[in-house]
């Protein structure tokens, strides 16, 4: 007697586990049970699982060592007579969950089949997900590199949606001339990669050039970039709505009047048309108003309604933040859910690759542009090939991304022979064949070529590994991240510089950085560095408390304890310390400063 559970609930017993489980499976294959049912049997119990949330995968059913998927099925599939779901319905393919897999023996390929096998993999590449299967020659790599490679591909710029010009996506980019990769996998075809490509096929040389590509840098050919290589457009929406406040007051989208509180300068509103909106194709930069808006005054009490000064509206326009620029691309006027006026403006900016932009191949070999070199200075091969991108050889040895190297040869063959090269996981074209083909095409079979330095014309000592590769431009661009500050905004409470790019903040010199200065004995440098919140406070010599100078009484120093009749000394300290003294006083502690002449 064996217990039977349906979704982990006990329902009854049967005599034998396996025959019962097999019977259920046959019923499922015949279509009498739902395809979504899975059965798992041990010698002691049978589990029937019908609930949601189980990860399942398709496998071809095998009977007596023979795959149920026949040539006939394949022919019918190619002719479009049947579909995938027909195969599932006919009991040729079934979906297994993790539990039922325990009762199976799955063969990787048809050649491995024995009578013991119950299932056959559709393709051995099925161990990978879709993005990972996009990595060509992936089976030559460490799994960790494949994961990094597939993560990088998700960040690549490309043609993400055909209706991009109608959309208001945050932080969206379009690559100008996306290309289909020369080395492709079958998944590229299945997923329709040609409809939404990302990346371009570039000539890549694996070499160094004055160290500008050390530590995962890449060198770009400036002339290629000027011809449009990896160029993209960045879109960013800006929106504003007319909010309603209590008392029937409402925001107004318009060019603010000059008497509005917080009015900027006339120049700031120069791009606005009569309706308070920017006109399309206006070139805007930092500080320019994009949507003009005024809001009713804050804290309006009922008494003030008749007060004229209180009727002044507040400026609340949307303008470009520090360091931003662009072109107004699309202006949309509509309403939100509450029926309030909603304005959205999409800004467009052409992004030409520059130093600091991020690029990657499909093998987890990302790098940041170190320099752009004009074509005439770039090393060139004797056959006249000039690389678009120079990749560092030091990135290969420790990461062992062999697929990166094979793609380079593969795409070189593809480009020369005018065909696509298959790099599907476990089923890719063989490296030896590719090398032979390369030799036939008149190139060195190991992919290397003799190079000359573009600056001196001298032949280089080493032969350079050069070929084609599909390179992706990643969405991390310096233009969005660059930030610097010498002077700038400070925090109200501590008078120390603000933090973060959005607030034009400084870079914190923290506790441990402070320690390094002390360890060097650079005591005066440290003081100077921390002078950002320096204050000079008059301190009463008698009470040791901080006072003030009263300008109405001839700038007399006033002590909080002894009033006018006390000697005050100007003491320099950090504002943070002054704040701490204040806070200590709120604790009821009399923090007295004992003054003493320094000399």
């Amino acid at each position, binding site marked *: 007697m064996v217990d039977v559970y349906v979704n982990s609930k006990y329902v009854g017993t049967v005599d034998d586990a396996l025959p019962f489980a097999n019977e259920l499976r046959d019923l499922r294959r015949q279509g009498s049970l739902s395809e979504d049912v899975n059965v798992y049997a041990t010698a002691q119990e049978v589990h029937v699982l019908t609930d949601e949330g189980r990860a399942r995968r398709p496998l071809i059913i095998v009977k007596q060592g023979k795959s149920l998927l026949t040539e006939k099925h394949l022919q019918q599939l190619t002719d479009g007579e049947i579909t995938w779901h027909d195969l599932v319905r006919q009991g040729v393919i079934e979906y297994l969950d993790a539990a039922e897999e325990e009762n199976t023996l799955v063969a990787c390929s048809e050649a491995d089949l024995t009578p013991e096998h119950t299932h056959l993999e559709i393709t051995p590449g099925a161990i990978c997900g879709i993005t990972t299967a996009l990595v060509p020659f992936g089976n030559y790599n460490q799994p960790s590199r494949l994961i990094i490679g597939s993560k990088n591909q998700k960040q690549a710029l490309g043609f993400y949606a055909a209706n991009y010009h109608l959309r208001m996506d945050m932080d969206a980019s379009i690559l100008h001339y996306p290309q289909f990769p020369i080395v492709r996998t079958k998944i590229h075809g299945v997923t329709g990669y040609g409809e939404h490509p990302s990346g371009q096929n570039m000539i890549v040389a694996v070499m160094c050039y004055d160290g500008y590509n050390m530590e995962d840098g890449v060198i770009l050919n400036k002339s290629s970039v000027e011809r449009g290589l990896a160029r993209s457009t960045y879109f960013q929406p800006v929106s504003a709505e007319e909010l309603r406040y209590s008392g029937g007051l409402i925001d107004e989208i318009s060019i603010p009047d000059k008497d509005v509180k917080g009015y900027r300068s006339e120049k700031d509103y120069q791009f606005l048309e009569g309706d308070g909106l920017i006109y399309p194709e206006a070139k805007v930069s930092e500080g320019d108003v994009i949507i003009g808006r005024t809001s009713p005054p804050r804290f309006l009490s009922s008494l003030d309604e008749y007060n004229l000064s209180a009727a002044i509206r507040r400026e609340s326009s949307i303008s470009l933040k520090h360091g931003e620029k662009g072109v107004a691309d699309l202006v949309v006027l509509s309403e939100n859910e509450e029926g309030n006026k909603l304005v959205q403006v999409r800004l467009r900016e052409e992004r030409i690759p520059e130093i600091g932009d991020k690029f990657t191949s499909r093998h987890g070999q990302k790098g940041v542009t170190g320099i752009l070199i004009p074509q005439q200075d770039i090393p060139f091969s004797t056959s006249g090939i000039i690389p678009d991108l120079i990749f560092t050889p030091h990135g290969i040895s420790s990461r062992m991304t062999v697929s990166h190297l094979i793609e380079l040869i593969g795409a070189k063959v593809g480009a020369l022979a005018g065909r696509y090269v298959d790099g599907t996981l476990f089923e890719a074209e063989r490296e030896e064949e590719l090398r032979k083909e390369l030799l036939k095409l008149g190139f060195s079979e190991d992919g290397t070529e003799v190079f000359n330095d573009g600056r001196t014309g001298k032949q280089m000592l080493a032969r350079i590994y050069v070929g084609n590769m599909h390179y992706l431009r990643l969405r991390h661009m310096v233009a969005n991240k660059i930030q610097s500050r010498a002077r700038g905004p400070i925090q109200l409470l501590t008078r120390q510089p603000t933090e973060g790019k959005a607030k034009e903040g400084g870079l914190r010199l923290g506790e441990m950085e402070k320690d390094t200065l002390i360890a060097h004995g650079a005591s*005066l440098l440290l003081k100077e560095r921390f002078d950002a919140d320096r204050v000079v406070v008059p301190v009463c010599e008698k009470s040791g408390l901080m006072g003030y100078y009263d300008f109405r009484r001839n700038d007399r120093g006033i002590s909080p304890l002894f009033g006018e009749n006390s000697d005050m000394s100007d003491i320099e300290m950090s504002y943070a310390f002054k704040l701490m003294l204040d806070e200590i006083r709120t604790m009821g502690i009399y923090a007295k400063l004992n003054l003493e002449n320094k000399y």
Partner: protein
Amino acid sequence: MKIEHEDLVRLYEDKLPALILDEIRKEVPSSISKEKLKIVLEEVYAAYTTAKINPGECVGLVSAESIGEPGTQMTLNTFHFAGVAEMNVTTGLPRIIEIFDAQKTIKTPMMEIFLNSPHNQVDTIRKFAAKIQETLLGDLVSEYSLNIFEQMLRLDFNQSLLQQHDLSVKDIVQLLKTKGKGFTLQHDDRSLTFIQKGKSEDVKDLYNLKEKLRSTKVKGIKGIKQVLPVKRENEYIVLTSGTNLRDILELPEVDYTRTTSNDLYEIFEVLGIEATRQVIINEVYKVIEAQGLNIDIRHIMLVADTMGATGVVKGITRYGVVSEKASVLARASFETPIKHLINAALEGEVDYLTSVVENVMINQPVPLGTGLPGLITKMK
């Protein structure tokens, strides 16, 4: 060195430490001429002066950074001895924290017991190890039978364990004579039986007896839970898990000059503060070496000196070294500021701003490095 040259060496007594002078006396060949000895002394003096640290050098912070930065790279928290269950050693960052915080109870107390010859050889080491391992009666018993009707308790012994510990049931009977009050004791060569004298309704007596017997020490030294004889160079030593330095040092076989424990407080109680300082240095350095890191031992010496400077062990915690700081602001800047401020207010403490942290807080030059020297001029 010739005695005649002693006068020359004496001249350097103010310039060089006695230890270095002694070393010169010992190492210099006896045939050396006076001129050459003078050159040697001058060279040593020059080397000694360059090795000295300048005034105003921030030694504490440099030590802190030198230990702290490699500390971020530490991996591997425990180390296991192959083959011995329950014998592992805390290493890595947890151990460093344990030492620097001077924690009272450490995770894996351990001893290294060195023996005098001839006890430190293969054939004798196992016997010694078995002798000191604390063995409880409960460890040897394979089965307790509690008979309530007959009011008796029978203990069956594991024969192989008995042999391993070189014990017989008779030996155990000797040990237990005083334990079984109100019971009569019978035994054969594999078991012991306690029978209650007179009638008692209470089963509790028997049960209590069982619990008492179970935790009775049969042999060994209290606290020594595990022993592991290992070869160290030419001799065999015993590593133990669990410590009892005081009792171990009293054993005649033990070489008391080299036997140590890794428990700071135990060392402090038995051997005093100087030994504790050395144990801190050794223990920390052991961890650092095991991690393959390279930290100058003088950094650790400085920390150990700081911890022992008051004559008792003080950890680098708010209760230990930090509580000794003279400056209120410095204490308040390290953990629990309000407590320190309030106590300082109650006592009317004055902060003379003589150290580093206070001066950083009020943004004044710190009295170190370029901030240390002052300029004195004569005013007319």
